[in-house]
């Protein structure tokens, strides 16, 4: 019940002490380079020489590999198989499965695309594991992101588990009054329909109250907001961000130049 939708793991590492914007820039740079680099092996190298070492540096390697095995690899594997079989490119057939052909070219293509997806998802996983969401949002708000936008992101992360719990309460209450949740699928769907009303309308009424509550605490105040936590942004962070931006520009320039 008290679990919240946050992957953040509190550890004391170099990565944890980086400014959140630096980490966000790092992630976006990794993704952009993986997608724009003209060299075939770039995404694979990024995983090996950047993302995995970074997860060790951030002391979140066990959690990182757990997520990778459970979530990222299965999804990327599925994508790989689909593209390897269905991509209609190339002549050199190396594998036949009934009417499906896997060519050397489609295999190469699928392998790179799957790795790009791995780079994208695992880079974000790395960000979420090492960055507290409210820290990221308050840093971005300080730099000019609208407060309402940050509020929507953070409150959704917190309120979703609460809504799940509420749905569970409604279902339990109705089951204790004889609601059928165990017979055929059609009957269950039918009996679940009346539960949607209380959940949706109840949540709407809650939204109004919550709006009053945050308004009463000056949410729309025109004063310049301050923040409780100081998020340091030393010049080393700024330097890292500039280096990353230059790397992205080089990658895009090479792509344009070589094509």
């Amino acid at each position: 019940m008290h679990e919240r939708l946050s992957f953040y793991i509190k550890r004391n590492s170099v990565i944890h002490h980086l400014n959140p914007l630096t980490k966000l820039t790092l992630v976006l740079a990794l993704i952009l380079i993986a997608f724009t680099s003209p060299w075939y092996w770039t995404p694979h190298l990024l995983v090996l020489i950047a993302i995995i070492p970074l997860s060790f540096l951030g002391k979140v390697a066990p959690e990182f590999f757990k997520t990778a095995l459970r979530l990222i690899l299965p999804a990327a594997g599925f994508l790989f198989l689909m593209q390897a079989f269905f991509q209609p490119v190339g002549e050199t057939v190396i594998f036949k499965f009934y009417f499906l052909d896997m060519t050397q070219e489609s295999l190469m293509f699928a392998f790179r695309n799957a790795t790009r997806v791995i780079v994208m998802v695992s880079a974000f996983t790395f960000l979420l594991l090492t960055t507290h969401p409210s820290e990221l949002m308050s840093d971005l708000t300080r730099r000019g992101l609208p407060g309402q936008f940050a509020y929507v992101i953070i409150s959704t992360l917190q309120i979703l588990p609460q809504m799940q719990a509420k749905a569970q309460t409604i279902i339990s209450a109705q089951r204790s009054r004889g609601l059928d949740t165990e017979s055929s699928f059609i009957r269950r769907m039918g009996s679940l329909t009346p539960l949607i009303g209380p959940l949706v309308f109840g949540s709407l009424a809650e939204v109004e109250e919550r709006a009053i509550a945050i308004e009463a605490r000056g949410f729309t105040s025109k004063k310049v907001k301050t923040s409780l936590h100081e998020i340091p942004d030393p010049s080393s962070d700024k330097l890292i961000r500039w280096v990353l931006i230059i790397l992205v520009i080089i990658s895009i320039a090479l792509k344009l130049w070589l094509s």
Partner: protein
Amino acid sequence: MAFINLQNVTYKYPLTKTPVLQNINLQINEGEFVAVIGPNGAGKSTLCYTLAGFVPHFFKGEISGTVEVAGMESSKSTLDEWVLNVGLAFQNPFNQISGAKYTVFEEIAFGLENTGVPRDEMKTRVEEALKLTDISNLADRSPYSLSGGQQQRVALTSILVMQPKLLVLDEPTSQMDPIGTREVFGVIRKMAEDGMTVVMVEHKVEWIANFADRVIALKDGQILLEGKPSEVLTSDVLAENGFGISRYTSTAREAKKQGLWKKENLPVTLDEAVEGFSNW
């Protein structure tokens, strides 16, 4: 000039046919602790929203008459200016948790962040407020992991920390146990003595009798009775109009009919009842 001044206030929500508040005239002085009682649908919450500026700025609808607090007029101010003077905490604690913060400490600092209080001052004020309502031990917990009563304290603290001139409370102790209720009433009493004006909707009449300066009995959007707790809460008018009254009052009223209650005034609290019954 009274600190709060309501002149002929009539208000109707956008979708209702009859006005929820009818011709309310009310003057409250600075530092006064006023309790509002009344049956369901009497307009208690609407009165709270009116004082806190949410009527008419948030709920729209039709309002007539004037609402003045601390020399400002509601219809001529904006809500974000108004909330700097007037704090509002209401019944359901769960919906008062902002959802934007991960710990109680951050949750309480939320209002101060929004109104641009500098960081050092913010920390001191949050720590003081936590001590005041005795929840320092919850500072690092997630606001969602707390019990209803604890969440109510957090909601109250989140408003107190903003140091409003007027504190409007709509059943702030509904989910608290008796010990929690007594502590919260004690804190609010102290705030009033320090100069904060308090308007509080509450059903627990014995607590009102012990702590409030004045009681307003509201029914069908109108002020039925107004005065000292000992007078209003023992009035026959309340019993006849379906208000919740203290069991000690109703016992003594019956006793009086039998000639067993000799005193002039009826009791509200246990102590008064014991004292009255033991002296005959």
